[in-house]
């Protein structure tokens, strides 16, 4: 080793040795040490870190569950019950995993609400948003596959209903469905491949999360004022300030999820899934997981098989083009007096859709679902482009540090202006 020619950046010679060959030390120092975070970021900005930690917890608990799970129609249900009764701390692992999924969606929903309200999806972070929607899609697929594995009644009939969506596609639909199932109905072949995919998809998510984080670090994080970083005065270093802040968020999150895991582990579960799968008897009322319910409500609100399926997938697909539907130059809804309220209504509407999605599709619930469906798409296709044109935004602060000084008002700064970095 020609030690003399190698630069000595660090005191520790091992770090120098690694750094010279793979500059990973300086990368982490730059991206997680000195990385400048806007100093006005509130706790909404902790949900990315929370989501990452939850993803890792899900992967780890999932691997340990898989060590005791048997993906076979005859044995799957019993193996889950064995996990609950006989495996050491198996009940804890399973409740961490099942409630972790619910909390993962709660966190990601808040993360998305944050991005929408503060306009994080706008220039120059569009690709970041697209990657995020892609992660959301993968999460929905993964959670659906995972819900099939305990092989209870809801598992079986949920899988049956969702895979039947594909039969709505004209001509190739039936063939496609049979190919996906590997059988004429949801059977052992289906369970095996669902288990295989449920195991691998989280690692795909992990990879896309890596891209998602790398992308946000290129132009830096957005902030509640939605304006660009102008100088060193606008930021604090990620370490230790944001790390400590995120740690506090993780502690609060830990208390909340522990309360549910230990005192109400089945609050967000469906009791029918504790009945073993029976291909001859459908439960009276099939309910999706709560986090898929808004989309399920859209599916049922349409009185046409293909139309319902298209709108349900369209409800997710339309998120991809949100950066181009929004015509306003101002990012943060704090400075958008009109759009702010439509945005709030959108969140409420999404919640209502989820609520009626868990209830039978009849009478008033169906009507509410249809109104919700119209607002959901109307918000993206009509309201978002239109408000951007007619709304007069409030004056933006000159810089992030001015937010604290309270002075120096100026006309809105176009977000397209290149950042000072």
């Amino acid at each position, binding site marked *: 080793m020609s030690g003399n020619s190698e630069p000595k950046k660090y005191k520790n010679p091992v770090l120098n040795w690694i750094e010279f060959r793979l500059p990973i030390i300086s990368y982490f120092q730059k991206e997680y040490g000195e990385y400048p975070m806007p100093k006005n970021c509130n706790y909404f900005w902790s949900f990315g870190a929370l989501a990452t930690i939850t993803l890792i917890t899900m992967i780890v608990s999932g691997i*340990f569950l898989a060590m*005791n799970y048997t993906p076979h129609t005859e044995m799957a249900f019993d193996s889950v019950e*064995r996990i609950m*009764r*006989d495996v050491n*701390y*198996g009940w804890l692992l399973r409740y961490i995993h099942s409630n972790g999924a619910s909390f993962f969606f709660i966190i990601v929903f808040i993360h998305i609400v944050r991005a929408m309200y503060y306009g994080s999806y706008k220039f120059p972070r569009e690709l970041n948003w697209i990657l995020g929607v892609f992660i959301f899609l993968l999460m929905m697929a993964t959670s659906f596959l995972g819900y099939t594995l305990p092989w209870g009644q809801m598992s079986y009939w949920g899988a049956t209903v969702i895979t039947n969506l594909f039969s709505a596609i004209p001509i190739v639909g039936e063939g496609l469905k049979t190919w996906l199932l590997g059988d004429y109905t949801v059977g052992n072949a289906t369970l095996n491949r669902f288990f295989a995919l449920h195991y691998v998809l989280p690692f795909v998510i992990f990879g896309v999360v890596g891209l998602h984080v790398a992308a946000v670090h290129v132009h830096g994080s957005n902030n509640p004022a939605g304006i660009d970083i102008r100088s060193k005065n606008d930021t604090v270093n990620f370490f230790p300030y944001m790390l400590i802040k995120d740690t506090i968020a993780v502690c609060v999150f830990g208390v909340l999820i522990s309360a549910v895991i230990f005192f109400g582990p089945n609050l967000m579960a469906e009791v029918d899934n504790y009945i073993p799968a029976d291909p001859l008897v459908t439960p009276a009322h099939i309910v999706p997981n709560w986090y898929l319910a808004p989309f399920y409500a859209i599916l049922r609100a349409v009185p046409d098989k293909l139309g319902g399926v298209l709108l349900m997938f369209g409800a997710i697909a339309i998120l991809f083009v949100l950066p181009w539907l929004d015509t306003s130059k101002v990012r943060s809804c704090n400075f958008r007096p009109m759009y702010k309220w439509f945005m709030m209504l959108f969140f409420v509407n999404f919640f209502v859709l989820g609520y009626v999605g868990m209830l039978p599709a009849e009478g008033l619930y169906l009507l509410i679902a249809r109104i919700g469906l119209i607002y959901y798409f109307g918000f993206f296709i009509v309201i978002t482009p239109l408000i951007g044109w007619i709304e007069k935004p409030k004056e933006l602060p000159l810089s992030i540090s001015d937010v604290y000084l309270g002075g120096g008002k100026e006309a809105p700064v176009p977000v397209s202006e290149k950042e000072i970095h």
Partner: protein
Amino acid sequence: MTDNPDNKRRDFLQLSTISIGAVGTAAFIWPFLKSMSPAEDTLALGTTEVDVSSIEEGQSVTVKWRGKPVFIRKRTKDEIDEAKTVNIADLKDPEEDINRVKKDEWLVLVGVCTHLGCVPLGQKLTDSKGEYNGWYCPCHGSHYDTSGRIRKGPAPENLAVPPYSFLNDTTIKIG
């Protein structure tokens, strides 16, 4: 560093935060690691009862205990004498035959070679019993005598004696 009381306070806070974090992490990891050790239903299979009334002198049976083969042999007079007259000093893993059995005619052994875990031959009448008339491991050539003691070959120890007891004259409980 030490003169300023504020620094001491900070050191204390930092150390206590890290310690509590470490304890919390360890407490979180423990259930995960513990989940890999044998589950309750596996432990429940930890004992096996065997009816030995039908075993004739000179015969052996193999039963499964905790997933492992256990040899139960009703030894002949010759075999017992052979086991008892060995010069203990010559043995690789010195052990008196009297310490390896509860009743002279009944020898109970875990049938797993102490070398690398193969099952030695010698249970069937047609099997090779090795040079010492006990068991012979075909994998790497270890020879065991009529007390299941290692006499020749790479195995380091005698065949293990599992915990067992006689429930009555004809029933052995292993485990």
